[in-house]
């Protein structure tokens, strides 16, 4: 039983471009779906608001812990913080780490999110309640993708 999520993807883009997509606050915002108030800086809070459709009412809040150029980027945050009325700040955040490695002309990117063992049970309840609307939205995303592709 693991308390972490790990994802490895190989991207057909050089490390420098992936690094920029992860750590330039505007580039990050473009793919992640968040409008950040300012650049990422190690040891500093990052604030903004989510722009991803359906989640626009949510604030973005993270603390950048590591920025090791073209190698490692990490921040802590509160995962699935989907209730704007709920104060997540007393909870121990999870750690999200991006590790980059050149593979030929491309990049191997590993994402690890760890620390779920500190999460209280009622957070899982909230996540489940939101799950249904999340799925409805996924359906819309697929429909939109198919529209765009045709």
């Amino acid at each position, binding site marked *: 039983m693991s308390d972490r999520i790990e994802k490895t993807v190989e*991207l057909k883009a050089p490390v420098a471009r992936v690094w920029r997509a992860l750590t330039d606050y505007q580039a990050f915002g473009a793919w992640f779906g968040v409008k950040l108030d300012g650049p990422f800086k190690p040891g500093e809070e990052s604030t903004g608001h989510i722009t991803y459709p359906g989640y626009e009412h949510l604030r973005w809040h993270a603390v950048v812990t590591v920025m090791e150029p073209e190698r490692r980027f990490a921040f802590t945050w509160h995962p699935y913080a989907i209730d704007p009325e709920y104060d997540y700040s007393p909870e121990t955040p999870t750690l999200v780490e991006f590790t980059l490695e050149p593979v030929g002309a491309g990049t191997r990117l590993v994402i690890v999110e760890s620390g779920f063992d500190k999460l209280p049970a009622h*957070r*899982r309840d909230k996540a*489940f309640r939101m799950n249904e609307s999340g799925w409805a939205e996924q359906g819309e995303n697929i429909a939109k993708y198919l529209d765009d592709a045709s």
Partner: protein
Amino acid sequence: MAGGPDAAAMFAALGDPTRLAVVNRLALGEAQSISRLTEGTPLTRQAMTKHLKVLEGVGLLRQIKVGRESRFALDPAPLADLTAYLELVSRQWDDALDRLRNFVEEQP
């Protein structure tokens, strides 16, 4: 899960090789007595009892009386909740990574 064991306790309960082995053994479906669960391990009956209490405390084990003997059975429901939550967060990362891929691979 309201009022149920929290994720921290659940992960702590499973974060021990002996207890994980007990869960694996009981996952086969058959309820087992403390004596049988202790067989083939270096543990004393007392030590095994402590481990079983921890697993029972987070709702993963149930005690069943068979005649005069007490046996332990696995209740996988709390595990399913935990797995479902991690899957939910995991899916969000899959979606985010798809968007990242589009972003970095389609740039000129």
